[in-house]
């Protein structure tokens, strides 16, 4: 399998009112194409921050980040925005749909930031992903008219619409009841089976087990990296453990 992401010595420090918080501390991590990774650890250990760094929502204080062999740690803001719109899909705990846009428009959003797509291409694509998450019958509704589970499915559709190289999900089931959570997790399983690379933050051990590789963080560091054998018969070579 080819390497998708390679983090080397990544650190992130926040400076607020002269208090320095080291949210990520020298993390090394390699993610291969098609992997389904879960990331867990106690609250405040830096999971969301790491995901932000992976998704280029923020830049690291130290270290290098290679995406498909390209060093992206020193790209300009616009270049990073381009990568986000073309290669990364986000699913948030709090859904983060835009309330003034319809379901259809929300899902369409990443494509509107890509250049050179015709209207019909966009429409088919959106229709396609909405069908995949079984939300196409609600495409003209506004987010506030949907249940939490439905909103999250729309958010997943939005993450898929640009055929991203990796889907980053930050506690996607955190705001959902068990039934809705199951729907979303099944959806992610399905996507993984279809070949998507997924990195999901979760508190729930059961959810974590669905991933083929489980990372664990503590105080800004990666402390465990386990292959979930039960889930993946064709075991991979032991991944490099990344405890800096």
């Amino acid at each position, binding site marked *: 399998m080819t390497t998708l992401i390679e983090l080397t010595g990544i650190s992130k420090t926040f400076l607020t009112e002269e208090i320095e918080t080291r949210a990520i501390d020298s993390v090394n991590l390699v993610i291969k194409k098609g992997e389904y990774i879960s990331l867990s650890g106690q609250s405040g250990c830096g999971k969301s921050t790491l995901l932000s760094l992976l*998704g280029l*929502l923020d830049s690291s204080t130290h270290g290098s980040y290679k995406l498909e062999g390209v060093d992206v740690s020193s790209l300009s803001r*616009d270049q990073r925005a381009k990568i986000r719109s073309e290669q990364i899909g986000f699913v948030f705990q709090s859904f983060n749909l835009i309330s003034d846009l319809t379901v259809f428009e929300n899902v369409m959003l990443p494509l509107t930031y890509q250049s050179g797509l015709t209207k019909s291409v966009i429409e088919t694509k959106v229709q396609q992903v909405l069908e995949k998450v079984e939300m196409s019958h609600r495409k003209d509704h506004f987010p506030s008219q949907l249940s939490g589970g439905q909103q999250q499915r729309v958010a997943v559709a939005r993450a898929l619409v640009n055929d991203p190289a990796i889907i980053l999900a930050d506690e996607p089931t955190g705001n959902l009841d068990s039934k809705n959570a199951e729907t979303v997790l099944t959806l992610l399983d399905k996507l993984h089976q279809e070949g998507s690379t997924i990195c999901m933050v979760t508190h729930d051990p059961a959810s974590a087990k669905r991933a083929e590789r489980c990372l664990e963080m503590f105080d800004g560091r990666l402390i465990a990296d386990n292959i979930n054998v039960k889930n993946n018969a064709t075991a991979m070579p032991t991944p490099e453990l990344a405890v800096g």
Partner: protein
Amino acid sequence: MSTFIDIKYALRLLFKAPKFTAMTLAVLIGGLSISLFTFSFLYSTMYKDIPLPNGDTMLSVNAEFNGAFQILNSYEFSVIKDQQTVLSEFGVYDKNDFRLSFDDSGKNVFGTYVDEGFFTFSSTKAIQGRTLQKADMAANAAPVAVISSQLWKNDYSSNKNIIGKTIIVNDIVTEIIGVMPQGYRFPGSSHLWLPIKSSMIKTSPKNANIVYLYGRIKPGISKAKAEQTLSQQLNALYQQSVTQYNLEKGTKSVQLLTFPFAQMGGQGTIIFTFLNVIAGMILLLACINVGNLLLARAIERQKETAIRAALGASSHRLVSQLMWEGIIITVLGGVLSVLLVGAALHYTNIILHSWNADALVFWWQWGMDKETLLMAIAFTLVTIFLSSFLPAWRSANQDINTTLRDGTRGAQGKKAGRLSRYLVTTQVFLVAILMLIGSMSAYVSHKFVNLEMGDDYSNVMTARMDLPSNKYPEAQQQIAFYQRLMADIKNHPKVVDVVTNNWLGSLSLTLDGVDYTDENSKPTVDTISVIGSTDTVGVDLVDGRFFDHQDKAGNRKVAIISQSMANRYWPGEAVVGKSFTLKVNDNNEKLFIVGVVTNRMNPATMLGKLNSADEIYISALQFMTSYQILYYRISGNLINSEEIFYQALYKTDRTIDLFYAVQPAEKNRGLMRDTMQLTSNLTFTTGFFALMLALVGIYGLTANSVAQRTHEIGIRRAVGATDKSIVQMFLKQGAKQLIIGLGLALIIFVLIAFGFNKMSEGIFPAYLYLVIGATVVIGLSVIVMLAIYAPTRRAVKMEPSSALRYE
């Protein structure tokens, strides 16, 4: 108790954000002060009762002819006085300028010829001696005068034995019979009251003169009824004359106006409304901004409000809690504005009275008064309603559920966003209107202030007079009078030269060898009749000669033309000796050019270029008119130089009344310039303040809506939006509001410009309106876009991960 807690809470919030409080207060005070000052100034100028006993029932009797304000004539007065049954008092007066002579010097004062009912009408008695009585009006009565307190103080040192002393009024020795109380200047700015003689009220329709009329309606009769009755009588009278004397057709009606209103030529309502609407717009702008600032605060506390509502607070309670902050700040702003406006009115009063104390009508006193205070309260209440109640009410009536669920963040976003967009559009609209009107009026004023007149009035004195037709019926007699007067003036060693001018209007010109399809296709040229040389007033000879005493009736008729006219019709040619035909007094007169002079601004083209209109000068010895404006140039200083004229006039004919006192020719112009300068400055300041308000407002609104959408920006950035696309999104939004606001303003501007252009008879070229329109559109667009760009730019700089955390 709960109110007390709310007030305490509001005060704490205001103290916690001193910058916000100061900014809100500044905007409020600015808006309130401007509208309050405008209201108070205009109200005092036009609507207050005259400060005399029974001042509320004193009316000025005027006419309206085909919609235009008019003054009645002595014939109409004398007939209606006998017919009318609706007025308990009805009398006549005539305003004039009088020359008082003291030894070898003198001074001019405003005075009034009044009838015997005048002082009863104004309910005022003399403080010394008596007022005028019926016997004083008799043709052979000894000349008597009543003087003002001020005159008595300044020129007679408040002499206790003033009664019976004499004063020389227009060269007539007159006995002082009374002194009026301090402050009495009725009917306007009078210092002297003389009996009106029956010879001054000509009762034949043919030679009737204009007179001023006062009246008081009988108790129990309404003003409308009185006007209607009088109008019927006046119109019937006019219709008789129309056929008999071939007058202009139309309806005449009577208008009963208050004296302040008549003073404004009956035009008060339009000016009052127009200026108050403008001031109201500024107040509205201020309200929008204050409302927006408070709304931003309310939105910040939206969640808090929702929690309170969930805990059981009634919406009434929520509204009042949110409102207190606005109420406190608005009331504070209102009180400070009243103090500020009070001071401003006080100083305006001092300045205006120091400018021209003698010409100001006595009821013009500006200052803080009951009406202004009431208006301040009204404005404050309106402001509270617009900028505190509405936002609070809106915020309190939000959907608690959606706010608390928070699933999609800022569920109120859509409504708030729409409101904020409306407000931006309204602001753009109001400012655009203010700027358009402001630049137009600033341009007009500027044009007046910097007008190049083409003449030189420095060291020139001027007087206007009309020779009575019964005493000087023939042109020859008139010419003789003016020639004697001018020779006498010129004899004085200080006088350089004398000239008379009379503008005859635009006369129809026929050039030799040109075919005109009809009368209307002929050009018209401004024509001035002259005795003497125009270089007296700086209109200098370029070619040929000035008129001399040989250019009289019987000799070849001559003309002098302006350079612009020579260039227009005979470019490159020598014009002296050429001829043309001019329609003077309905006769086509062939005129030979004897000279060319420099260009001059004539009254008809006041705002054009110096050479855009032409002048023809004709010899008054050949075309005499009884009315003349006389100019004489003095060498050295002007001190006492008006006496030169009066000495000469009294030697020639002491019975001639002047239209204005003799005065430096610059004086009127200077006054006009000062007024225009003031208007221009005021307009500019007001416009600038409005622009600042809008700038602050639009910046605030955008910053506010950007802040509300920070989270959305984060989401958009997370899914790949670039900085540019986010900024563009806001600019596009802003552009839409800008276009709507500007578009509406331009439509109104086109209407105003159209009306103004018609009213001003096209003195401004059409491109001027285009230039003003384009400048405002471009200027405002840039400013609005900057006001939108700045906060957007700032929000975009945030990392998307922090934007997503933003609540």
